[in-house]
């Protein structure tokens, strides 16, 4: 199977998020970046499918220079090659615009399977994979925890709400959005990191892929949420805060 994994680089989980002076986007200076978590699970699923059935895993990532580190991470973990869609204005494109870029880069590859995470930790839109399927005219399934190749296509395990699941059969080629937790993530080995340096990373300028259509969804500004609830914050040394909390739980909340 030839498998494409569409990945996104997002601020690291522990990164301090600051709003930029114009209030339009976050201040990206000095931020730490990481591979979006559910995309890491998508990559893992792709690598396991390749180990079972042979084939090729191609990582695709759109973004500026900095996403190179995420691409190298994917190659070090075992992706065979990568496509870097060069694009400095990610934040001003909407989900449809990004999906159009990805679709244009993926189409000539004619993959059997396209995997991506179910949503990104920054924008949380959860739409890229689904729109990609529509643009490529392929069937899709979302929130997938387990993928099994069958005679005629795939059998996938899909997460529903509140602890329910469902198996879905679909033909390939197909697009799946992967939920976290279905597999155990691997680490890159030293050998993998060394090999990654020799693997092909093809850079494609965004402008050469798709005419930049005007976005249909606009993010006007961002702001810190207004606090609505008055939380009693307990301060002092750890011992003092702990003692204060026990007092409160015992005599005020009567929860002890």
């Amino acid at each position, binding site marked *: 199977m030839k498998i494409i994994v569409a990945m996104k680089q997002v601020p690291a989980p522990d990164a301090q998020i600051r709003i930029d002076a114009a209030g339009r986007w976050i201040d990206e200076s000095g931020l730490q970046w990481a591979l979006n978590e559910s995309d890491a699970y998508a990559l893992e699923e792709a690598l396991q499918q390749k180990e079972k059935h042979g084939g090729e895993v191609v990582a695709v990532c759109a973004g500026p220079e900095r996403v190179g580190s995420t691409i190298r991470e994917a190659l070090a973990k075992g992706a065979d090659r990568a496509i870097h869609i060069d694009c400095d204005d990610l934040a001003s494109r909407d989900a449809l615009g990004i999906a159009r870029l990805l679709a244009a880069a993926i189409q000539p590859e004619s993959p059997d399977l396209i995997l991506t995470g179910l949503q990104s930790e920054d924008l949380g839109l959860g739409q890229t994979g689904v729109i990609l*399927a529509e643009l490529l005219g392929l069937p899709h399934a979302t*929130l997938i925890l387990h993928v099994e190749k069958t005679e005629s296509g795939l059998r996938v395990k899909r*997460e529903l709400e509140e602890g329910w699941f469902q198996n879905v059969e679909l*033909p390939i080629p197909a697009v799946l959005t992967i939920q976290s937790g279905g597999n155990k993530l691997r680490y890159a080995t030293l050998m993998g990191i060394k090999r990654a340096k020799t693997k092909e990373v093809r850079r494609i300028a965004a402008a050469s892929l798709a005419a930049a259509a005007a976005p249909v*969804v606009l993010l006007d500004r961002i*702001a810190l949420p207004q606090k609505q609830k008055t*939380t009693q914050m307990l301060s002092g040394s750890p011992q003092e805060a702990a003692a204060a909390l026990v007092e409160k739980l015992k005599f005020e*909340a009567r929860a002890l």
Partner: protein
Amino acid sequence: MSSVLVVQEARADGKSRFFQESLAAGRILAGLTGLPLEAAAIGNPNSSVLAEFSGPPPAAAHAVQHPLLETYTSDGYVLAFEQLIRKLQPAFVVFPHSYQVRDFVPRLAARFGKGLIGDVTAIEAGPTFVRQLFQGRVNGMYRDAGDGPCFISIQSGAFPPDSATAGATTIHPFVPEMIAAQIRTHPGEPFRASARTVDLGSAQAIVAVGRGIKEEANMPLVRDLAAALGAELAASRPICDNGWLPMERQVGSSGQTVAPKLYLAAGISGAIQHLVGMKGSQCIVAINKDPDAPIFEVADYGIAADLFEVIPALTEAIKAAR
């Protein structure tokens, strides 16, 4: 005629609260734009799906019916709603932000060359749609541009339903055209993983741990605290994904929903998918080193500090107090 079209999700359990919330959001939009409110659902016109509305009923309701829509598939639903929307030409289409909606509406919107403004928490003049970014740490103010319908989905719990008594409206049947070959996915029956061995739903006290615990080797810290409190141990998703606690101890939209007397969250940021599973708790305590973590928004008591310092002290203080 242009309208605000609110779509009900067909659910086997007939849960309609989320629909009533979508209607509440639809009413806000109708108020802002002066457009009439309409409703739609997949289902039999004689079934109860569209029979009852809390608050003033919509001007009309559309029951979308076809044998191929009896089980949910993204292909089937996209085809059906595409045809309904082309016929009705609504200015806005409002959905509940459910897993089903996440599965098919982005595709539906793309078919109209549009996007979905998803998981909306507030609607302001403009209309401007507010949704959370960075897992609830920042709000984004969104606007729809371009021609054609504007698709939005609303977050569960964000738009309180109208409490006025129920009313009914005229139901128009709508039969979309589709054939079996157009539906490429074949879903099986929903199932549960395995019999649960713990029922967190009946626990009096819960200590929940999140990614702030850093390593599996640190888990005894929260185990000791839970033992001192006589509490059940629970976790956010990443802890269960890592296998540090079994899946059945996950709290949230894909785990259990709990409402204990005391819920103590340690090193949990407070993403919406976690909050929906625990915000009904009587007393919520949050320990997080980030004073701006969204979990403090639902907490009664908060300690903004390093859990590795606070938890041992708290365990001692609780033992001493008992």
